[in-house]
């Protein structure tokens, strides 16, 4: 229950706040503190309640707390505060008087949430009935009326008290038993008054209709909560008659159906929730390319130096050419001969047979011909002498290096993410979280033996 839920309900049902003329929610401690004031002057002050926003009849429909008198503004306001506790406004202590300027009782709706205190006795919850008798010249009387009363009988049933062309009527709605806490609605139209019991367990309202011409229920100057100018018991509007708490009251300047009033009251009682809008990104994949995977293996070796002494071979210390005997070399053939201490490979010509060529002369120029002569020469061999020396030489430890090879092992298709935003607007609503305990019944009366 909050001002926000009331605003939400009014705008969602009527597009504006204009239909709510008066309301007061005594369970809203913030309202109690901010809207209590006193009216009067000098040493005579009376407590009052301002009509809170968003009610449109702000100035017209202030409520005067009839029992809250004081010699100062502060004391009168304090009296009002004393009548209010966590259960609501105690109608045992004071009645409320609401100005009905710009409010037509023959075309309006009222929602009242109330709670009994202890034993139930008859009383007026909503009092607006006024009657006036005029004496005609022939000494007969005529009676006129305004408004109507809604109250509770000693038996705990709702009643409607009014006046019509047949005179006073008191209609008691015996079908509906009441709980400790009850919420009722009533609305008037030009032809009838509808009273409804709002059953929050069954999520419906139970409606009773009394046919009354609007002619007889026009608005008086004031309506009273907790009393009336005209009841079947009391005639003073300042007398408290109702033994209970008023938790909230809403007056709308429009005669609404009972189902609509049930919905409105459900929303008024609810908690308002607001959720900021948001944007949601909707992902959508797209093909962005390929990812190639290469085979892995040994790509090389890394050798590192390790310490140590090792004999790795022999070194040539000296050599000499040793004769190997006579070699018969065909003229023109190759042979190694010792020249100036070095073995040199040369072509061999026979010294003894030199000058014997065929052809000769011009023919020798034409063709260099060699005859089948041979000559003996001395042969040598290179005899190497090695020394077996040792020392520090680097010793290497080699490990294989792994990495990608050039061969392809696979190709993966790669998708990127793109997408778009969906924008959610702000949202709001109401949730009914009404405690059920006081709406339950707690007395079972057996008729069987008494019928």
């Amino acid at each position, binding site marked *: 229950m909050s001002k926000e839920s009331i605003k939400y309900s009014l705008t969602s049902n009527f597009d504006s706040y204009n239909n709510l003329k008066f309301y007061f929610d005594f369970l809203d401690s913030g309202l109690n503190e901010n809207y209590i004031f006193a009216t009067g002057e000098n040493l005579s002050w009376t407590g009052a309640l301002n009509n809170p926003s968003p009610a449109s009849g702000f100035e017209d429909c202030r409520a005067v707390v009839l029992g809250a008198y004081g010699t100062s503004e502060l004391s009168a306001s304090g009296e009002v505060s004393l009548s209010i506790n966590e259960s609501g406004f105690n109608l045992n202590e004071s009645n409320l008087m609401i100005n009905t300027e710009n409010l037509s009782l023959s075309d309006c709706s009222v929602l009242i949430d109330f709670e*009994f*205190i*202890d*034993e*139930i006795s008859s009383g007026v919850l909503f009092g607006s009935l*006024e009657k*006036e008798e005029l004496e005609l010249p022939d000494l*007969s*009387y*005529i*009676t*006129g*009326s*305004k408004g109507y009363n809604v109250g509770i009988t*000693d*038996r*705990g049933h709702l009643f409607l008290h009014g*006046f*019509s*062309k047949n*005179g006073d009527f008191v209609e008691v709605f015996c079908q509906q*038993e*009441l*709980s*400790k806490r009850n919420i009722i609605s009533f609305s008037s139209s030009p032809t009838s008054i509808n009273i409804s019991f709002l*059953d*929050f*367990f*069954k*999520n419906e309202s139970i409606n009773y209709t009394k046919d009354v011409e609007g*002619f*007889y229920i*026009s608005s008086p100057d004031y309506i009273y909560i907790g009393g009336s100018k005209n009841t079947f018991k009391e005639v003073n509007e300042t007398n408290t008659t109702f033994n209970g708490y008023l938790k909230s009251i809403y007056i709308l300047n429009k005669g609404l159906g009972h189902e609509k009033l049930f919905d409105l009251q459900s929303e008024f009682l609810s908690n308002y929730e607001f959720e900021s809008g948001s944007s949601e990104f909707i992902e959508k994949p797209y093909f962005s390319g390929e990812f190639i995977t290469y085979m892995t293996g040994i790509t090389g070796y890394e050798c590192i130096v390790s310490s140590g002494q090792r004999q790795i071979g022999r070194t040539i210390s000296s050599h000499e050419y040793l004769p190997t005997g006579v070699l018969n070399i065909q003229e023109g053939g190759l042979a190694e001969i010792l020249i100036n201490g070095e073995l040199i490979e040369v072509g061999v010509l026979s010294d003894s047979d030199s000058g014997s060529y065929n052809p000769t002369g011009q023919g020798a120029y034409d063709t260099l011909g060699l005859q089948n002569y041979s000559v003996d020469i001395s042969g040598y061999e290179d005899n190497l002498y090695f020394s077996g020396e040792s020392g520090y030489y680097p010793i290497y430890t080699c490990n294989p290096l792994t990495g990608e090879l050039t061969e392809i092992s696979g190709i993966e298709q790669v998708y990127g993410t793109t997408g778009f935003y969906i924008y959610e607007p702000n949202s709001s609503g109401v949730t*009914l*979280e*009404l*405690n*059920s*305990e006081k*709406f*339950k*019944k*707690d*007395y*079972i*009366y*057996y*008729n*069987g*033996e008494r*019928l």
Partner: protein
Amino acid sequence: MSFKCNYLLSTGNSSIIDCRSILKDKNKKSTVVKGESFVSSDISTGHFSLSLSLNGFTLFEEYPKKSVVNGMDFFYINSGDFYMLKDEYNKNSIYLSESIQDGSEIVYDQKDIDSGSIAIQENTGVGVWENLTIPELTGQIYGSQPLDAEDFFDRWNVFFNKKKVNVEDSLEIDQMTGISFAYKKGINLTEIKTNDFDIYGTGVLPNQSELYIDGLKKERKTFIEMNTGIVMIKVGIESKKEIQEDIKTTFSL
């Protein structure tokens, strides 16, 4: 006069919205004609969804068996008191196993779907009820088994010869033969056994209570649920009031 009064009170929980989910349609009536009675399809969701009583006696539903004779379907039951059929127009009909007078009224309540359990007590003697019949009843229960006899009566409505019985009635039932059956109770239920007709301060959901007196179910019109602040009978109030008949005509101010 000695009597046993049993109130079954649905208490719900603290949230009015949560309470709505356990509300049942109760105290509906239907007239029996030639052993058949119609029930609202809004209330009966199918087999085993109703608690039915006739003249205060609670009846047991049995799933019907079918036999085909000359191409026609015939339904029948064995130990139960009634069975239900749904026709092609989605109309639910109750068929009673015993023939009763046309025009009799059955009273039915919506309940959680439960086929219940049934047992026949054929012998009498000390301990027969607790040692033979009750175990036979609990043996047919699926799911959460009762821990003992008290738990059984706490969580199940138990009937013997169509009258609601309590765990204290064992000695009396030992001396009887008959048919016993049990139905699971609903959730958030408080049972009050008392010798007073009126009870106070229980916080009950409106129109969900049941009352059994001496095991017989009473119609809702026999009791009223209301606020404890209401005094039903007041004394010391003047019984006459002077009425002045002086209204001649009316006008609007």
